[in-house]
């Protein structure tokens, strides 16, 4: 049985001609959309931000949407990735690719530490414990100003050119900038698609649907949770590294509790547990923020109200509702 067959045979997904084809090729389609995206959006810098935050929300989505575990501490994974990459490039002068590698490592490490503690609690405790532990990471990075720049943040994460196979790309050019980030996001999309289509991906969704049954089938639920949390951390670490390269600075707010909430909002707005939802959510959130802040400084009021309305009336999110409509 090939990987693609496993996906097609899932009972929740009707094998409808083009839709099931689209589902099997979801990573290709999502990548194509992201590659064409800057042609639609006039602001390239905003498009790059949407990519970064979409990837960050994708990391949370694996945990929240697919495994059903709500974390309010993902800012720690995202922020540690950003700081590791930033410190590598700005302080040690390492090349950009080493920064990205260290960013992924940072996110993974933070996820392993936070996950090992938080996984000991169950159910609703998890959101509170992850929030508290992320707050702890925030204070630690805030106090270690020698490394992190403390309150004023880390500056000087400047990457001017990206040399690849003898070709030098001008990283300052917004479009090149976008496509470099896009390349990593596409790689992450394929990795996620691969993970979800693997037997482990089926186990993840099995745990979400019925924990008791998964346990009875001999699955070590705590281990599945921890591994998923760590994988989620790798995605968020990559997103953090890309954020620091994108903005050339890492601000302490990256580790803030509101940044954790941001990923949750984006996930829910887009549609949790859907493959492309996080990017739709990130795009909606950032576009909404940009448009509303043209008219009022109190954009959080509108964003908060939109989120509350989404929880009440569209719990599947925009993309999720759309997908559900197509399946009928």
């Amino acid at each position, binding site marked *: 049985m090939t990987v693609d067959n496993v996906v097609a045979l899932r009972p929740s997904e009707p094998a409808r001609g083009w839709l099931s084809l689209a589902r099997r090729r979801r990573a290709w389609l999502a990548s194509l959309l992201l590659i064409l995206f800057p042609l639609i959006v006039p602001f390239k810098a905003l498009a790059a931000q949407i990519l970064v935050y979409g990837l960050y929300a994708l990391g949370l989505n694996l945990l929240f949407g697919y495994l059903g575990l*709500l974390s*309010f501490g993902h800012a720690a994974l995202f922020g540690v990735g950003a700081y590791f990459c930033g410190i590598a490039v700005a302080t040690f002068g390492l090349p950009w690719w080493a920064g990205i590698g260290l960013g992924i490592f940072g996110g993974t490490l933070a996820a392993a530490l936070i996950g090992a*503690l*938080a996984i*000991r*609690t*169950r*159910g*609703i*405790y998890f*959101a*509170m*414990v992850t*929030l*508290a*532990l992320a*707050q*702890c990471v925030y*204070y*630690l990075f805030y*106090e270690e100003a020698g490394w992190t720049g403390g309150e004023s943040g880390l500056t000087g994460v400047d990457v001017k050119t990206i040399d690849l196979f003898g070709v030098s790309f001008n990283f300052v050019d917004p479009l090149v900038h976008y496509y470099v980030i896009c390349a990593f996001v596409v790689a992450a999309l394929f990795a996620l698609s691969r993970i979800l289509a693997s037997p482990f991906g089926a186990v993840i969704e099995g745990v979400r649907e019925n924990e008791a049954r998964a346990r009875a089938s001999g699955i070590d639920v705590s281990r599945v949770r921890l591994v998923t949390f760590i994988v989620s951390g790798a995605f968020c670490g990559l997103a953090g590294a890309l954020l620091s390269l994108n903005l050339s600075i890492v601000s302490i707010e990256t580790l803030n*509790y*509101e940044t954790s*909430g941001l990923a*949750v*909002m984006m996930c*829910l707005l887009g549609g949790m547990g859907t493959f492309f939802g996080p990017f739709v959510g990130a795009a909606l959130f950032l576009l909404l923020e940009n448009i509303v802040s043209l008219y009022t400084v*109190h954009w*959080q*009021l509108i*964003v*908060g*109200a939109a*989120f*509350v309305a*989404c*929880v*009440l009336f569209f*719990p599947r999110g925009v993309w999720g509702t759309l997908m559900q409509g197509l399946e009928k």
Partner: protein
Amino acid sequence: MAGLTLQLLGLQLFTGVALGALYVLLAVGLSLIFGMLTVVNFAHGAFYMLGAYVGMWLLMHGVNFWLALALAPLAVGLLGLAVERTLIRPLYGRGIDYPLLLTFGLSYIIVEGVRVVFGNTGYPVDTPEILQGAVNIGVGYFPLYRLFVIAATAVILLALWLFLERTSFGLIVRAGARDPQIVRILGVDVARVWLIVFGLGTALAALAGVLAAPLQGVIPEMGGPILAEAFVVTVVGGMGSLVGAVLAGLLVGVVVSMTSLFAPEMSRVAIFALMAVVLLIKPQGFFGRAGLMS
């Protein structure tokens, strides 16, 4: 260590208890709401902040401190009733994450709403005249206002205890926390009980806010960090347990004030370290009921 006397330790201990008193009020509200409604109120910090602002507003308009101390929690409690009735009630039975997400979104609205009305900057709040100064408590002079915070919290806890243990409505609350279905079968309007408990919890948060205002002033962001700390308290004490909330609140307050004496730069990290240790030893907290959370 020069200058470190038993006196200093004693005063720092009292400072910790005063800080802990605020944690206790917040954590008791959180626990009460969770124990009954199984809702984790992420807007609890925002209600705390709102309480502080309403209190400040009343004081600015010449209302005396004692009246403000009663009116601000009442106003915020009424808002809590409205929130439960209109926003949270439709979400019962739709999974434990939804009320949590909703209250998270609500906290954005409340914080930004306060910014709209009062602006982004904070305000200092004067200690009421009658509570200014310091009194000798045996180990040295201690600010009278902090002593008042401890006393006020003790009075509130006593009243809450009497309400829960000695009134018939308290009996319903306790029974409802254990098994809402049986209580409903016995003909009790559980929805009404939940409504009141949510209002009571938010009023307690607002009361903590009013009490905290003279200590640290008010600022729209004041609810964020204290929400994380209140979560630590409920995790350490055991979610849904009021005794746990009280003991853990005091413990966390003392831990914060003691570490700020010995290692000031670690004072904000210390309580999370405490939580980590508790999680390793007793994941359900001191007084948590196993299985409640699953």
